[in-house]
């Protein structure tokens, strides 16, 4: 999504957001979520998307292991 705001605790506001669910068996599932406020405790990485490269991704063909949960 689009990062609209953040604070020192890394709480963020994410607009036009969608969740990508990866699987080793079928293509990527995209779930539209809309406007979210995400509590910083739950955040591991905030990555800046290169739109040019991201557009070239064929999500239906992509197979990937979903990421493991964070264990503190």
């Amino acid at each position, binding site marked *: 999504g689009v990062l609209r705001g953040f604070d020192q605790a890394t709480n963020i506001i994410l607009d036009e957001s969608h969740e*990508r669910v990866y699987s080793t068996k079928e293509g990527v599932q995209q779930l539209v979520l809309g406007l979210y406020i995400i509590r*910083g405790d739950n955040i*591991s990485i905030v990555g*800046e998307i290169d739109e040019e490269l991201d557009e*070239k*991704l064929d999500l239906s063909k992509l197979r990937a292991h979903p*990421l493991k949960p*964070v264990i*503190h």
Partner: protein
Amino acid sequence: MVIPGVQLFFSYFKDLVGREVTVELKNDLAIRGTLHSVDQYLNIKLENTRVVDQDKYPHMVKPNSFFYFFPPSRLSVRNCFIRGSVVRYVQLPPEGVDVELLHDATRREARGG
């Protein structure tokens, strides 16, 4: 809350800006990149990001069907911010570590300096 010793590593990482590092997260993901910046929480910003072990996590690899044959030069994500609380290790090239300096600094810190 001030945690003793964190200021030491904050200063240490500030001196490492510009170096290639591999950040291993608590979910076993390993991300390599150039250290762009660090803050008091040891949050890390990396540039020219790539994932170590791309066979397992190809969605963070160059979106090209040939990626199994050619090493990826670019990612969908070029720059990223990693929250300090999820970092397990920051792996550095051995030349980048002055063990003596760190040893002295940590000894001083432990003594309560």
